[in-house]
């Protein structure tokens, strides 16, 4: 079993876990459930991009996951802050 097969298996299993998380995006009871599942998918995609970079033997693509992780973190934090202040809408009160 070569190392590329290990990378391929890890990529496929990460994709399976992303598809399992998509269930909570489609049918979350609250808006915060969907936001949480989207954030989790974003951090899974970061690792998936590293795996794809090693799988296609161009591991210099690590710069793109770094930027994507920072953008995902800032987006989640800002949307959570707006919902907490109640400036967008009043969801559950």
């Amino acid at each position, binding site marked *: *079993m*070569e*190392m590329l097969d*290990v990378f391929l298996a*890890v990529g496929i*299993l*990460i994709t*399976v*876990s*992303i598809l*399992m*998380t998509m*269930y*909570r995006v489609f049918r979350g*009871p*609250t808006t*915060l*459930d969907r*936001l*949480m*599942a989207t*954030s*989790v998918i974003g*951090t*899974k995609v*970061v*690792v998936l991009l*590293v*795996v794809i970079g*090693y799988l296609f033997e161009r*591991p*210099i693509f*690590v*710069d793109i*996951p*770094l930027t994507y*992780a*920072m953008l995902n*973190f800032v987006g*989640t*934090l800002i949307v*959570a*802050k707006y*919902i*907490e202040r*109640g400036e967008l809408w*009043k*969801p*559950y*009160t």
Partner: protein
Amino acid sequence: MEALHVVSALLMFSGVFFMIAGALGIIRFPDFYTRLHAAGKCDTLGEVLIILGFIVYEGFSFLSVKLLFLSFFILLANPVGTHALIRAAYLTGVKMWKKEESQ
């Protein structure tokens, strides 16, 4: 396969196990707070383990320092995002799960 490749493959598969366990918890748990518990712990541990496996596979180079920065950033940023989400949910009044409601 060399010994270091076996060690990195073991780290990657344990990380994948934690990620799939976290996804199962996100599907199966009954409440927003418990779902966020599964998401925060399992996903942070799984991603850091997978990137640690890549660091072991790569050896000591410029690329492994970049991967180390990426895993350190995920280790810092993921619990902060989880804390912000759970604070927003508590302040806007998402209901907690009780045992009598399920019967």
